[in-house]
């Protein structure tokens, strides 16, 4: 009980509050802040109310003294969807961090991912921006770790789940979900019999943070607590680059998938056994 009272939930914080909670006190500086009104030019035209920061907060500062840029997605605005502006903000921040590294400033990056993926109202522009984000992560991660955090409650889906997969390290909580397609999309394609998107325990058993961590697809599994999440991120930042990027181990995962018998309904334990095997 005292444990519960002493906890300070990270999941309940908005994007800006999350970025502030992670950075050293007094070091927070926002780039393209909401008062600059760099908003989506596409939403109003389609009758959708825009947000002044387009749902993406870019913050620079330090974490335990290390130079850091944070890109935080606001999951409550349009499901954390990425359009032209928000996507360009994240890609630009990562590109500038890589540029910093080439100029001798060791800027690291943390991505706070609460997103359903591309914003359908901005279709191709959103997809192009997400491709830019992917390229920027791959560029920056040669110099410094790029850490993805999926805390919940939106989760991380679509093109941005690929971004999560490209990160040097991925940190998840029990609230997190990670998947290429969201539950409703899978239900629509596979049918209710196979995948009931309203069955929450079932959804979390397959795509939830605990399952992803136990399957070796995430590097840290942390409680929903600001102090613990901050401490784990700091540790990963100090650890430097991983011995091998997960996304470079495609051959290992493909070989494992090839060995899978897809005829019976797949259980969460099947996935864990499949991916855990002999770890690369």
């Amino acid at each position: 009980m005292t444990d519960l009272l002493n906890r300070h939930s990270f999941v309940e914080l908005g994007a800006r509050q999350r970025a502030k909670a992670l950075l050293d006190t007094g070091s927070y500086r926002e780039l393209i802040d909401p008062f600059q009104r760099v908003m989506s030019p596409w939403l109003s035209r389609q009758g959708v109310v825009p947000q002044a920061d387009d749902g993406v907060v870019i913050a620079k500062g330090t974490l335990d003294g290390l130079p850091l840029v944070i890109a935080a997605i606001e999951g409550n605005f349009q499901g954390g969807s990425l359009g032209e502006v928000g996507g360009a903000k994240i890609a630009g921040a990562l590109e500038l961090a890589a540029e910093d590294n080439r100029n001798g400033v060791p800027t690291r990056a943390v991505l706070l991912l609460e997103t359903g993926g591309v914003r359908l109202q901005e279709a191709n522009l959103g997809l192009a921006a997400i491709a830019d984000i992917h390229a920027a992560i791959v560029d920056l991660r040669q110099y410094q770790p790029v850490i993805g955090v999926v805390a919940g409650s939106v989760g991380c889906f679509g093109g941005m789940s690929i971004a999560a997969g490209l990160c040097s390290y991925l940190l998840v909580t029990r609230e997190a979900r990670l998947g290429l397609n969201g539950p409703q999309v899978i239900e629509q394609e596979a049918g209710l019999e196979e995948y009931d998107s309203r069955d929450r325990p079932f959804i979390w058993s397959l795509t939830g943070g605990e399952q992803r961590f136990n399957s070796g697809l995430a590097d840290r599994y942390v409680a929903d607590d600001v102090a613990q999440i901050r401490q784990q991120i700091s540790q990963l930042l100090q650890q430097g680059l991983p011995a091998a990027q997960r996304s470079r181990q495609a051959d290992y995962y493909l070989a494992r998938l090839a060995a899978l018998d897809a005829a019976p309904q797949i259980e969460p334990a099947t996935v864990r056994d499949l991916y855990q095997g002999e770890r690369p």
Partner: protein
Amino acid sequence: METLSFEFPAGQPPKGRALVGCVGSGDLEVLLEPGTAGTLSIQVQTSVNGAEQRWQHLFQRLFQEQTPPALNIQIHDFGATPGVVRLRLEQGFEELGHD
């Protein structure tokens, strides 16, 4: 979606600016910035059509209790109830006081 404009008499502009809320379901985002002395102007972009009178009454009731500072307020509303709107505005005024 509708865009509405309002103007009210006001005092002096504050020093700082503030942002509260989020364009999430049943919520709104309020940006408060210093305006010209004597005038409070509000621009509302809302997902709910036909609610101009409701906004007018809400603002009137709030500002007749106390003369507001001179501000340019921009609101992005995603279907917030009058109670939520009032709470967010009061939160915004309080944040201005902190700077």
